[in-house]
């Protein structure tokens, strides 16, 4: 019996999660409510069954997620019987940081990057699972599965440990932490196929529906609630759209699509001509921007 590629990927992810739980004191799973997080969470249940998932989830909330994301978050907590810690950066709350007044860079840095550091520090987590995949972006291709961060959460690309076989060295000094990426070796296609096969609950925004949008600089932005600031002359129009990646709704670009089922989404993806991260506005801020964000501590 030869295992299929999805069976082998799932087994590898389970192996990684069990290593982290066996070797670290206080692990946590970063949960962004996206499809990669959903996949990772589903695998976590399998890794520790029949025990409940032995760590909490952590959602670094920006207050600007799509409404349907908040709905799924509540549903998932019940479905998997897992604790979800929601962290809001108090500084960002106090200053009312938003993408309209402060721009995507400051918005993302304060809510996500600083928020993540605060949450990890205040709970004393020494390991955090992330849903990053090596196929997402060039600088991720060299990311280790166990990635070490200094006590200041910095990533030093020159000083990462070699990873041989399936042996992961999880030893660290007090204050240092590990980011573990159990689905490193999955591609976008693998994730979609797995979600379909395993019937994993996902945010409906990944499927095409008529939704109100405005077009800005060639990007379709959904008007998800009253806070969306319209520019003079802008009128939201109902268009058949879906999202390839999710984040803060004013910073997430939609694509026009008729794909209202998972197979059709996969079909569109396979026939598509643009890659996944293009819908994420934060990546376009500056050259090699992901790499820079990672060194600063962004996941």
């Amino acid at each position, binding site marked *: 019996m030869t*295992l299929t*590629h999805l069976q082998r990927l799932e087994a590898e992810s389970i192996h990684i999660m069990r290593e982290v739980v066996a070797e670290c004191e206080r692990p946590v799973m970063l949960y962004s409510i996206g499809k990669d997080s959903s996949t990772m969470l589903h695998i976590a249940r399998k890794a520790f069954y029949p*025990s409940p998932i032995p760590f909490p989830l952590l959602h670094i909330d920006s207050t600007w997620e799509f409404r349907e994301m908040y709905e799924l978050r509540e549903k998932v907590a019940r479905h998997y019987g897992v604790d979800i810690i929601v962290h809001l950066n108090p500084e960002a709350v106090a200053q009312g940081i938003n993408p309209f007044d402060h721009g995507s860079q400051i918005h993302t840095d304060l809510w996500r990057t600083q928020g993540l550091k605060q949450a990890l520090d205040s709970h004393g987590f020494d390991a955090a699972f992330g849903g990053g995949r090596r196929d997402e972006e060039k600088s991720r291709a*060299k990311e280790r599965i166990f990635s070490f961060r200094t006590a200041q959460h910095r990533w030093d690309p020159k000083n990462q440990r070699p990873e*041989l076989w*399936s*042996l992961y060295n999880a030893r660290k000094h007090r204050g240092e932490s590990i980011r573990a990426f159990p689905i490193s070796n999955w591609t976008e296609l693998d994730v979609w196929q797995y979600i379909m096969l395993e019937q994993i609950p996902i945010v409906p925004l990944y499927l095409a529906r008529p939704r109100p949008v405005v077009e800005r600089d060639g990007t379709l932005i959904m008007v998800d609630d009253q806070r969306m600031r319209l520019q003079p002359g802008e009128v939201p129009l109902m268009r058949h759209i879906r999202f390839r990646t999710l984040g803060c709704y004013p910073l997430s670009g939609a694509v026009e699509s008729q794909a209202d089922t998972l197979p*059709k989404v996969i079909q569109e993806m396979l026939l598509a001509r*643009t890659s996944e991260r293009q819908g994420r506005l934060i990546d376009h801020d500056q050259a090699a921007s992901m790499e820079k964000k990672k060194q600063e501590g962004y996941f």
Partner: protein
Amino acid sequence: MAHVSDLIAVDIEQYLHQHQHKSLLRFITCGSVDDGKSTLIGRLLYDSKMLFEDQLAAVEADSKKWGTQGGELDFALLVDGLSAEREQGITIDVAYRYFSTDRRKFIVADTPGHEQYTRNMITGASTADVAVILIDARKGVLTQTRRHSYLVNLIGIRKLVLAINKMDLMDYSEKVYRRIVDDYLDFARHIGITDVTPIPLSALKGDNMLAHSERTPWYHGPTLMAYLETVSVDAAHRPDGPLRLPVQWVNRPNLDFRGFAGTIAAGTVRVGDAIRALPSGRQSRVTRVVTADGDLAQAVAGQAVTLTLADEIDVSRGDVIAAAEAPPEVADQFECTIVWMADEPLLPGRQYLLKIGARTVVATVTEPKYKVNVNTMEHLAAKQLALNEIGVCNLALDRALPFEPYKASRELGGFILIDRMSNATVGAGMLHFALRRAHNIHPQALDVDKPARARMKGQRPGVLWFTGLSGAGKSTIANLVEKKLHALGHHTYLLDGDNVRHGLNKDLGFTEPDRVENIRRVAEVAKLMVDAGLIVLTSFISPFAAERALARSLLAPGEFVEIHVDTPLEVVEQRDAKGLYRKARRGELKNFTGIDSPYEPPAQPELRVDTLHMSPEQAADAVVERVRALGLIG
């Protein structure tokens, strides 16, 4: 090709159904940038339609800025990652790439071909089923070709593709191809490589990548893609061997369930199978193979499962559950090959952590029997292993563990070494076989023991370990302390450079490995003296934290008192009573601590003596007081 399959557009459900049954192949590409390695990978990604328009646009822009193809599309830029490397034009790490076809998903480990990066190649190769060795047709078999082949063979890859690239620059000459193949096979046979598939290629032009090239009508073997899609991957996963399951985690949700979770390394497990847990050797039967998708009747190598057993036997993380009738050996001393991966050399005698399967133990390595020149395969004498060196050594562990020779099992025979201070992964190794002598030394139980000898002297034995820079005042203070203890009626002995360096250790110099050995011997002698009931004072620079930790580990808790005689370098250098610092600064003394050799101050000594604010007499009093507080003397 995968994503151009007409099925996608016509019948996506059918397509997805087919794609659920793909297998997975991991391979590594070896060669330098000059051989066209990045181009070859870029071409595989491009041809399997794994590139999207925005990625292509980025590469087109990059090609104009950094490209080496005169503004033409430079596939190599697709696979280079971090910005600093991109500017240097070299890849300096392992990068993983993904593509898939109708038959398979592929994971490619892309590693650099430069000599100093043996460590990266070994890392990338450790998970690969197949290696693609690139050769530039203009250059033929080079030193680096031999090196790469040796390394992939060492790490246990049995299937090699000899990709003879840039055939376009040699007019697709069959003669050139044959000569390179013959050269290579001669060498391959010599080092024991048997399964080689040579393919003439042009990665740049696409010849024999996906389709047979019209320009090589004389070649009848598979194209590169055809080979990668059909080569068997099962051998690496050994579904047929006896069961081996390293236990990663004990699953205990409540008192009624106790499961052992792990990934099956080899064999098949069925409900009812007799098993043996190692190293304890206790036997039981499998009662359930538990997964979240329901219990299984059986599971095979590669699956991550949870087993429950019929009996309440003691099994914990790091143990191996094995077929009862064919268990692996258990041993604590081995011969092994080590690949060193750290800037600091491997020091024989120093303790490292060794991780194998899910088990971590303490290991010491002997002086290498030899190291291997990876360019010529020659065996050379060696005292230590430096970065990227490979050597054969003996290994002694602090406890026995179940293992298999690496040749039979990557999972039960491959290990990493971890530095105890920095926690870095400093080496990788492969077990060959167990050394029998471990079984033949049985500790002789003695009737007169340490407590008996100590009682006769009326004291608690222990070691006062003075450490600090040369000239810090260690010996002065230790002498005063010994006088005071003697006056109090204690039996003492002072070990220092004068009475050790001229006798026991006169064969040792001042290189790093010799310093490690010097302190190791001092620690062992101190241990014997403690066993004899003495209070031992040692006065050595002992610059490395690892050796002081070793000395501490040899003794019982409470017996080791580390005293840091803390005098700043500026001060000892200014005093320079013996003129040694001046000599060292002039380069006349090599490996002088504080000048060109490091001193690692103790993080948590039992006592720190600040000589700037204390006279030697006061310092000695402080030591005696501390020793009393610790209960060593009355």
